[in-house]
């Protein structure tokens, strides 16, 4: 097994954990966290791909991931702003009709 393949498989595992957490938890901040971990897993996959030929490195995926990191932080900031507004207006941190506090 090469180093590239090892980290690719790690990325697949990380993606799996993230997609499970994204679907199973209803708290929106947890969903945003899970999306970020998913993004990280995909970045890791791309960087591992860039190293498939262990004698050289492909700079194109590197540039793509650099762009991706900035896009991810922009999207996260916007998602968090939406969440804060939702919480301020309705007191909720989830996207369903159940009141957060009545369930406690």
């Amino acid at each position, binding site marked *: 097994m090469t180093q590239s393949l090892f980290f690719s498989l790690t990325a697949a595992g990380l993606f799996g954990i993230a997609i499970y957490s994204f679907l199973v938890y209803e708290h929106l901040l947890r969903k945003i966290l899970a999306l970020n971990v998913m993004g990280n897993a995909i970045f890791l996959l791309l960087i591992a791909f860039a*190293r498939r030929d262990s004698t050289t490195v492909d700079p194109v995926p590197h540039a793509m991931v650099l762009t991706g990191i900035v896009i991810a932080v922009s999207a996260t900031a916007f998602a968090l702003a939406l969440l804060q507004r939702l919480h301020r207006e309705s007191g909720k941190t*989830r996207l369903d009709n159940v009141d957060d506090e009545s369930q406690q």
Partner: protein
Amino acid sequence: MSDWVFDGLLGTGLLLLGWQTLISRDLFRSIIWFVVLGLLMTLCWVRLAAPDVALAEAAIGAGVTGALLLNAYRALLIDKPPRHPSSVVARHRQTTAWAVGLAAFSTIVVGGISWALLNLPQAGVDLGTLVRSRLAESGVSNVVTAVLLNFRGYDTLLEVAVLLLALLGVWTVHPKDETFSEASSDFAQNSPLVGALLHLLAPLLVLIGAYLLWIGAYAPGGAFQAGAVLAAFGVMLYLSGRLTPTPTATFSLKLLLIFGPGVFSLIALAVMFWGGALLEYPKDWASLLILAVETGVTISIAVTLVLLVSGSPGLKRTYQ
């Protein structure tokens, strides 16, 4: 052999940290785990010979995203203090039957991706060799910067626009009547230690930012990394009360925000007068134009990231 031990530890560490981040009972702890995960990811990328990306991840992925998440967490606690503090942090979950089904689904996804990875055919086009063979034409000697700002400059131009768009989105969503809460505690404002630390770090961060910007043409570094380091400086000033949020943006601040996208777009269009296509820099001018674009982008990225963290339209200096 020792390489394998190190890689194995890194990979296992990533999976364990990912699990902790996403399953941890306490949301605050989850966020801290996430930042640690980002830093470990940085190490992986250094191992995979991607120092440019590692620098950006450490500063933006782990640093700025962590600050954003903590800010949001704090806002959820403060905005409307819940009757039960646990309702903000509790792990509301689907029913157990659903959870088991979703776990099975996730396992299938991982299995499918792994199978695809193990049976991946060789790449049809070797872009790496193509980039290296034409590196001399790009005006810089760092391959990643060459791709980012010359060969695929279009992506970067749009990315800078997306960053600006995200800030506009945050501004739109923020309630108009909001009185921006002071981010800093009295401790941070009055402590002589914080002041002394800032005096020490401020020149250092500006120096590191400028260095990263300059060195990006030859070695790992560049506009994003430099912008993130400068943004860290701004976030520090904001958290310690040296910059306070204002409800409106001043004209000069708006100018700084569009400086990067503006310079980039102007240069992208201007080169067409030399007979090239959009973003096709003339060979002799390429290094100079790339440096100009990077400088503009650095400034705009830094200002935008600080405003994304503060969530306010503007910031003003407060004198201690």
